[in-house]
């Protein structure tokens, strides 16, 4: 029931906003649908906490602690982003960067995007998961090109082609998985792609084929996670699309893609009995962290800067999942949560800063703190949080990952620490003059919605100081599921 609501609300929202979305209240309707989706997600989470794993709809949907936590997070950030986009997109309309028709497309696609992500998270069928991930790409291509500037068209094209090719690799990986599973589960083919069935027989699956399948799946979904060297679509799509889309791409889509990778890893690891999946994840993760932190120095566009920071943080989480074990998995899940909350709040403030100063070029954004103390402090606090400054949750997760790395992978610790230091210096030296210094901005016609920013940062702060016991149990259960 909750699940049905969770999936139907965004589809209904997309249809409603697509048909009747040109009216004045569309942003509010969008927010209302997102709120409904979030409530459904909460109800689903409560049910899973009370009664344990759920298998619904003829086993096509499977909810366990691992995905229900991501479902709740996705629905929550989806809701706050809808709240943020309300005044933001109105201002864009007033500045003449959009037409009402395009705003309708934006709202409709926004809901459709939420639907595809929730479907990818809740489905038990690896094939359907692929279909939903491809759907997530398709529904956001037109959002990236919403402004129709040459740069945004280029970003959209790059996004489409790179993710399209990547996702074709993932389909091939899924097929290989199916071939191996069919041997064990029988050839009627109904159950051979269901994750729960695959999980039950994973030790009997043919190792060489599964190893090959994992490489294809990792390359395919890894393109969407933004792992280096498959990342080149990510900064462009983040910088050229509208800010709410940058926030959900960075905060949610990357998480969902990483979820797909981790689900595949659980299966493959049960079969191959070698270090291959772990090593691959650690390798890709570490390369992403290092390359992204070095590229941070060269950025001039505020949204590109934080897009590279997303690659870095996804690299950290991927590395942690690669290490495996209860603590590293716990830390990786926590890291996904706090990164998603912090990064979306940073994009919110960066978007407002860009609107106020009329530019995304960082050397022309100055003195945000005098312009608007809330935007200035929001950006400053958000940047400090993402850089892992102690009281915030990112510190906790990075600390856990680093200490685990010292124990199990000592060689990687200095590389990680150095990369984190480089990233700290790069981001801090760029954010500091933007926040302080002489002002250059203007007033906005619609008061910005900064509640989401501070709500996100407050949660991240809370997670850094104190993780409530039921939440900790929840993460632990999820970490246990991933195993490794």
């Amino acid at each position, binding site marked *: 029931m909750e699940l049905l609501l969770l999936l139907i609300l965004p589809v209904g929202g997309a249809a409603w906003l697509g048909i009747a979305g040109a009216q004045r209240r569309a942003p509010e309707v969008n927010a209302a649908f997102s709120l409904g989706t979030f409530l459904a997600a909460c109800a689903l989470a409560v049910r899973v906490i009370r009664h344990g794993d759920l298998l619904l709809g003829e086993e*096509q949907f499977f909810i366990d602690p691992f995905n229900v936590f991501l479902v709740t997070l996705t629905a929550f950030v989806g809701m706050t982003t809808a709240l943020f986009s309300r005044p933001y997109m109105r201002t864009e309309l007033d500045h003449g960067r959009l037409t009402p028709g395009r705003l309708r497309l934006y709202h409709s696609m926004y809901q459709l995007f939420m639907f595809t992500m929730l479907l990818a998270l809740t489905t038990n069928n690896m094939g359907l998961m692929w279909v939903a991930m491809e759907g997530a790409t398709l529904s956001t291509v037109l959002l990236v090109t919403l402004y*129709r500037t*040459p740069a945004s*068209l280029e970003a959209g*094209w790059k996004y489409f082609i790179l993710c399209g*090719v990547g996702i*074709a690799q993932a389909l091939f990986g899924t097929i290989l998985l199916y071939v191996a599973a069919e041997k064990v589960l029988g050839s009627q*083919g*109904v159950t051979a792609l269901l994750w729960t069935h695959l999980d039950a027989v994973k030790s009997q699956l043919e190792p060489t084929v599964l190893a*090959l399948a994992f490489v294809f799946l990792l390359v395919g979904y890894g393109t969407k996670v933004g792992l280096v060297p498959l990342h080149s679509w990510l900064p462009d799509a983040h910088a050229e699309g509208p800010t709410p889309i940058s926030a959900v791409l960075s905060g949610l889509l990357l998480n969902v893609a990483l979820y797909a990778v981790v689900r595949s890893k659980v299966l493959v690891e049960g079969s191959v009995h070698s270090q291959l999946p772990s090593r691959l994840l650690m390798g890709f993760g570490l390369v992403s962290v290092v390359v992204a932190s070095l590229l941070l120095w060269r950025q001039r566009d505020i949204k590109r800067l934080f897009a590279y920071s997303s690659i870095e943080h996804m690299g950290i989480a991927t590395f942690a999942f690669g290490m495996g074990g209860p603590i590293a998995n716990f830390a990786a899940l926590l890291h996904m949560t706090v990164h998603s909350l912090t990064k979306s709040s940073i994009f919110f403030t960066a978007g407002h800063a860009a609107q106020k100063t009329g530019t995304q070029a960082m050397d022309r954004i100055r003195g945000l703190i005098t312009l608007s103390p809330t935007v200035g402090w929001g950006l400053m606090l958000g940047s400090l949080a993402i850089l892992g400054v102690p009281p915030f949750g990112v510190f906790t997760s990075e600390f856990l990952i680093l200490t685990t790395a010292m124990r199990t992978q000592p060689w990687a610790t200095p590389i990680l620490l150095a990369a984190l230091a480089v990233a700290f210096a790069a981001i801090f030296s760029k954010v500091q003059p933007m926040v302080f210094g002489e002002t250059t901005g203007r007033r906005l016609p619609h008061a910005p919605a900064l509640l989401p920013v501070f709500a996100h940062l407050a949660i991240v702060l809370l997670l850094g100081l104190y993780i409530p016991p039921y939440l900790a149990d929840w993460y632990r259960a999820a970490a246990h599921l991933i195993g490794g």
Partner: protein
Amino acid sequence: MSPLPLGQQLLDTCAALLLLLSFAMLSQRRVVALVNLYALQGAVLAAATLLLAWRTGEDHLYVSAALTLVLKVALLPWLLHRLIRRLQVYRDTEPLLNVSGTMLVGLVIVVFAFSLAQPITRLASTATRSAIGIALAVVLLAFLMMITRRKAMSQVVGFLSMENGVLFGAMSASYGMPMVVELGIALDVLVAVLVLGVFFFQIRERFDSLDLHHLESLKEHE
């Protein structure tokens, strides 16, 4: 050595035709002909699916063949032809690598694909397992085509041909995927082409051209 049964021989012929068509697409510069080759590839794929359905008696393969026929032989080529007419793009510019060079790279790719397919071929129990190498080769050749072409339209045909290869792989390794997944894939492909149609008009409106060298300004600046 006893001769292979007729159905098997026909299936192998289909596989060979698919590979041949991939090479033909790789060398074809005219966009209209490229779309026709794509439609032909779809037709061969549908024929192979039909043969397999008849040989194995798996009902869902009939549905799959019908789906391929409607989508890839009729609907998608029609949409693409319409786009070409309305956008007036008939020829691709000189590819990044000349035709003979591309062909040589293609040959190396086929050898590579066959060696990569070895472990899967050994595992698969289907009568068509020898075709898995061909499917992988079709995927990689389509990939090569996407890399070497400059025009958006040719890249899209490459993308679609890659999906043909993946589906042929699914068919020869395990007699197709579960129905719900195949329907989902077909839906995604259809939506992808529709989204691209919209997208092309946006590019066109902005640049008066579908040449992708306009789309090369987003590089890392120093």
